[in-house]
């Protein structure tokens, strides 16, 4: 049970690291690689992260990353993987706003502000579970079906204790999801501003 947990977590982390690296490579070359190349890169990089490389390192590269980041939530992991591997509909900005707003409410209390600890709800709260299902339904109805699958898989993963945690929040939410949502929103806002500035020339008086 223990080694299975650790190995599956390392495999997950290896794939996530290789997906991030591949995303960086695509940005570097300012192009989207063909699917076959993307899969090949993920397999190669994933193996490089998973197996101990020797030298002065006693652990696989993924274990060093995991030491710092901990296990990523299932939602973050699947959003990350699906964003690069698949060609599905991109994440709506509304969802990103929701993630950032949730973080602003969640983290201060979870990290010690007052005696109410929303993190503890992740062990036993039916209301939290109901809320999560409602969020999935709302976004599914709004047309973003991918998140319905992802949240359903996160609930399944929590039910079978896929990770070390028995807290539902750890399967749904983590700081990296918040950083990504915030970064994407800022990027989208800057893009919109630039577009607006450029379109302004066409209608400038005189």
């Amino acid at each position: 049970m223990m080694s299975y947990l650790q190995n599956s977590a390392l495999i997950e982390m290896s794939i996530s690291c290789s997906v991030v690296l591949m995303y960086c490579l695509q940005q570097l070359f300012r192009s989207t690689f063909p699917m076959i190349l993307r899969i090949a890169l993920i397999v190669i990089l994933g193996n490089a992260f998973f197996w101990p490389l020797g030298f002065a390192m006693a652990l696989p590269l993924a274990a060093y990353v995991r030491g710092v980041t901990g296990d990523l939530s299932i939602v973050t992991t699947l959003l990350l993987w699906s964003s690069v591997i698949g060609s599905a509909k991109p994440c709506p900005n509304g969802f990103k706003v929701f993630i950032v707003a949730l973080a602003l409410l969640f983290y201060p209390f979870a990290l010690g502000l007052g005696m109410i600890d929303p993190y503890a709800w992740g062990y036993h709260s039916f209301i939290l579970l109901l809320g999560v299902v409602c969020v999935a339904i709302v976004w599914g109805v709004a047309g973003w079906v991918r998140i319905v699958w992802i949240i359903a898989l996160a609930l399944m993963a929590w039910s079978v204790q896929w990770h070390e945690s028995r807290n539902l929040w750890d399967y749904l939410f983590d700081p990296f999801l918040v950083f990504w949502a915030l970064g994407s929103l800022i990027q989208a806002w800057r893009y919109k501003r630039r577009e607006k500035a450029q379109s302004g020339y066409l209608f400038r008086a005189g």
Partner: protein
Amino acid sequence: MSRIVAFCFLFIAAVVADVRMDAQPAWSTFKPPFGAIAPLDSEEIPGAVKGDSFKSHAVGVPQDDWLPDTGALSVHASSLIALNDGNIRAFWFAGTREGAADVVIVSAVFDSKSRLWGAPTTVIDRVGAERGLSRYIAKLGNPVPARMADGRLQLFFVTVSMGGWAGSSISTMISDDEGVTWSKPERLITSPLMNISTLVKSPSVQFADGRLGLPAYHEWIGRFGEFLRIEGSQVIDLRRMSAGRGTIQPVVLLQSNESASAYFRQTRGAQQLKQIPVSQTTDAGQSWQSAPDLDIANPNSAVSMVTLNDGVQLMAANNIETGRYRLVLMMNDGHGGRWHPIQILEDDESLPNDQRREFSYPYLISTNGSDAHLVYTWNRKRIRHIYFDGAWIEQAKIQLTTPVTKSLEQGVQ
């Protein structure tokens, strides 16, 4: 169509998760130590227990010795647990300095018959921890042993992958042979922020359903206590014991199977009271409320406490507002009375500031409810062990209100 399939899958996942949530064990009452907290049987001879060879020692002279030297330059954070054969096992960390990569968790057994400590053995080092946990570990700290309901020993200890102690997580190992060998370490998940900033320092308490209640604390953005409910090597629930940035290292003393008090090391701001903060629960740790401070000075240093089987409580603490140069043993009747210093264990007050040594991180246990073993860091160089046998403690109770104790109080307040 794909949307309908997705909703169906979500429905199934939600039902499975609901079933899983229903399977979560209900909260339990506490299991008070030593059976029940009740007055001593008048025929019971204090200190006369199986395997206890200290009863013949003279009253008024606690037995003291040192934990075995590991050759390390720095040692700290010692802890104790009673073994089934009547001996005591100690744990502490040792290395070139606190937080160094070469710090290892060490253990040694105190033979209660020969009154000698055995040779120290390494329980786990940094490399062993990172191999077992499948993640990078930069340093180790604070080992805290516990006795599981099935009789096995469990060791909780702190690991850090990045940064200082604020980046800590708690890991745990289990031993089937009283601490001779240990399972691979496993990680407790206690925080939503990369699982960092949770540490352990004080003994666990047992729940009536066999699970453990482990007082832990956060030490980063917030500095507060948290009560972890542990099943095997997993946290199955947690409850906040305090809030804000002023309370760490909770020690939990049970009063009944429903009520308990937690006493903290204060980490308050300069303008705030340097006393021991307190929280209380009346529902077996499900909710905690802040209570008035104990009127005992605390210089941002750990306290250790234990309840004996007649309800009397002992506390080892640095009862000064700054520094850790004095360590005293205090006693309380367990019925809401005052805490009285009964023994000055260390005191460097007469020395100039730059020559004062550090006496810190006390850890008290009782093996039978009438005696007490204390270990503490002695100037970061050694770990000192003091044994207060039942007769000594009985004498201390008698002397609580005598002029001798009063003069002692005046001397240390």
